[in-house]
């Protein structure tokens, strides 16, 4: 494997374009666009303030740079470097900014979630959406980019509005039976909307595209509930991970639980394979399932590490969370389905894994920690 030279960036703002041809990085208030193959700088843009969020449009023609402190959003074009666009939210402030799926509208969430402003780059028009909800995931676009679901809260009740992204026409607006809606997520086929409640109540509601309630699922009461959910790419399964260290899978025909996966501290199931990273340098031997904890500051090239398969049963180190603090680091916090819906990767407990991402072929998985990353390759049938 070859490595390029080091490039500067700030705020972990480093994104590849959706078509895979360009690499955009932000260094303080500059936006640098490079060619992916040669890493030559193609364009250099200067923003008005330090960029806190950067996003490519879906057709890789525009880049959005958001500067929350000043309430500004600047949009740059790759085809015409002279083209510029500046959106000033004024004194109303800016908390988050993102593209719409067609790459021609910018959605800005103002401070205190007062409203969502939809700016159109095609005709300079503005639309306002009032009462957006500030929660874990209040806005979601369907996979084909046609519809947007937005969680709203008025008069102590939760509502969901479904907009048609074409012209921002409000298609449906309905109340949800949640106490405090925490998030919405479209299924990959765009027909079902999964809505989950706050972690104080375990409740998942499934709504059809036209606003009908299809089903409700609640595994237990009183204890802390759902952490996150994930749809399988074929829309056949919905995985729900919760604070009780279990993942429950619902099927899309009856919306009943068909599987339940546990994460016990003592792994003794004969079907499990446990990989432990063993490092040769004389420091802490980390004991993880497949990712390493934060280790020494020695450089990547000096530390030799390999993975060995542990004999069952294996005791996984468990950190007891502080019961007095809110949002304990307990439970399954990350879920990821592989592209062919064959595998489900989960992260339980307080392991320092920040993200799990599958390769599009579904054969390999990348685990990103704070300072390290690890690639896991699944055994394919030819290799058996």
């Amino acid at each position, binding site marked *: 494997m070859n490595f390029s030279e080091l490039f500067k960036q700030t705020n972990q703002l480093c994104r590849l374009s959706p078509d895979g041809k360009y690499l955009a990085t932000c260094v303080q208030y500059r936006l640098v666009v490079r060619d992916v193959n040669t890493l030559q700088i193609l364009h250099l843009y200067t923003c008005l303030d330090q960029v806190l969020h950067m996003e490519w449009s879906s057709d890789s023609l525009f880049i959005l740079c958001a500067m929350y402190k000043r309430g500004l959003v600047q949009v740059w074009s790759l085809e015409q470097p002279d083209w510029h666009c500046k959106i000033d939210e004024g004194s*109303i402030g800016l908390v988050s900014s993102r593209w719409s799926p067609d790459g021609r509208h910018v959605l800005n969430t103002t401070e205190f979630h007062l409203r969502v402003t939809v700016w159109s780059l095609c005709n300079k028009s503005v639309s306002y959406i009032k009462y957006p909800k500030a929660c874990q995931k209040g806005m979601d676009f369907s996979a084909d980019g046609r519809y947007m679901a937005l969680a709203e809260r008025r008069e102590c009740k939760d509502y969901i509005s479904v907009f048609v992204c074409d012209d921002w026409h409000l298609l449906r607006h309905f109340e949800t039976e949640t106490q405090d809606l925490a998030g919405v997520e479209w299924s990959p086929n765009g027909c079902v909307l999964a809505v989950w409640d706050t972690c104080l109540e375990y409740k998942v509601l499934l709504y059809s595209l036209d606003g009908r309630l299809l089903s409700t699922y609640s595994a237990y009461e009183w204890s802390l509930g759902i952490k996150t959910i994930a749809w399988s790419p074929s829309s056949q399964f919905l995985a729900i991970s919760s604070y009780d260290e279990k993942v429950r899978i619902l099927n899309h025909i009856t919306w009943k639980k068909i599987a339940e996966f546990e994460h016990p501290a003592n792994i003794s199931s004969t079907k499990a394979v446990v990989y432990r990273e063993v490092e040769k340098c004389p420091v802490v031997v980390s004991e993880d399932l497949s990712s390493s904890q934060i280790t020494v500051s020695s450089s990547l090239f000096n530390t030799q590490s390999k993975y060995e398969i542990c004999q069952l049963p294996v005791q996984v180190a468990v950190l007891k969370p502080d019961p007095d603090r809110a949002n304990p680091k307990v439970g399954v916090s990350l879920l990821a389905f592989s592209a062919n819906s064959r595998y489900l990767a989960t992260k339980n407990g307080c392991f320092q894994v920040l993200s799990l991402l599958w390769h599009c072929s579904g054969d390999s998985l990348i685990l990103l920690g704070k300072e390290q990353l690890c690639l896991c390759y699944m055994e394919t049938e030819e290799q058996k």
Partner: protein
Amino acid sequence: MPESSQENMDGPYNSYRLTPLLRRYTQSTNFYSPLKAFCTDENMAECISFLNEEMSLLGFPLLCPESGASRGLDVVALLNSMHALVQQHRQVLRTVENLETEQLRAASDMEYQQLSHARLKEQFELAKRENGRLQERERQLHMNIKSLQNCIKNEKEEVQKLQNIRASRAAHYSHDKKRKEREYQKLKEHLNQVLVDRKDKKQAIEILNCVGRSDGKRSQWKTRKSESRHESEMYKILLNELENRQKELMTENAELRKVLQQMKKEMVGILGPKRSSLGEPRCERSADQESASEGEGDCDPGQKAIEVSCEHAREELTNSIRQQWRKIKHHVEKLDCQVSLVQVVQVESEAASNETNDQEMGRLKLEVQQCKEFIHTQQQLLQQQLISPCEEETASLLKDCYVLEEKERFKEQRRIFEEQRKNFASERQNFTEAAIRLGHERKMFEEDRATWLKHHFLNLTFTDHVTHIPKSPGLPAEYVEPDPKTLLSPVTFSDAGSVKSSATADFHQALLPQSRF
């Protein structure tokens, strides 16, 4: 003296004086002690009167009559009375003995009773103590129970209380939250209003020029029609999804039903030949009927589809499968029993056969695995062929690549062929030149011959000219052409230029003797 008789009299009535009684009596009566003599010489008369009195009191005849002043005793009376007294005495002794034995018996009984009484008393005491202990324990346990019940009650009350507290707190918090939320909402509204009204820092967009839409179309007005269009699109999407799902489910259903049918057939097959041995003809008939009916269903998939939706048919299928499965299970259990009975005897042979069986199984499994892999790869290739939409170039390339080897071979062959053709052409050229040269030489030779003939003829005309003209004996045999006239005629003696025009003729002719070269 009468005291002793008094004691004697009291003895039998006094039940507490047991043992000394007989002794006293026998002592006092049988033992005659002369020291204590009752009658002496002096007091004989008094004694007689006293005894008389006593005898009369006792009911015996008098010892001496009253009237007699003489001291003459009635000896007969005296003897009778003595005898009577002795008899009485004996009787008394007997009675006393009886009484004694009775008394002894009674005494031993009493002792026994006393002993048992004592024992029972002890037992009673023990039992009382035990009872007391048990009662104490029971009391303690009751106390315990009471205290535990109290505890439970207290706990329940506490739980209830806590739940009430929790519920009330939850209500309070939610109420509070709602209130705060409303307040927050008001603040937000107010803030919104203030910020919107502020003129100094207004929100605006500065854009150099408008960008076209991503799909290239023009944006449309928002009208009722567009709204209804959105609605219809949304419903179309939902319908498509539902239809797809229904199709998938139908195919899955059909496959599963096929599997079930197959399973049922196999089960019937397994059970069929054996059932005749078991002697259940009725079941077989019914099974056959069922399979026949199902077979009819199988023949027509369209009909099957309709049958499928009929609940009756579904129930029939599942019921029949359950029946067959039960029969198989029963059969297998029977076989298992038989096997376990036989197994004890045939352990070794079974082990050996098991080994061979295992080997066989292993081999078969390997074969099956290989076949499966082969089928899988075939399927994959087939799918690739069918599914992947190739472009024409790639399709043609693909088609080409199959015959690439042949093409290469053909190219090679063509090249060789071309080479050979060139060779042939050059050879032909050579031969043409050779033939031309030959022709020239021939011409020359002919001219020479002609001149020689002429000379000869001229020389010979005077001698014998008739025989030489048609034949030319000077020519060697190889130069005798099949058609010497055609050779001679184009080779004119005068015109050398015409040789060229006849070169091709020469060439053709020259080709013929080439084989001889």
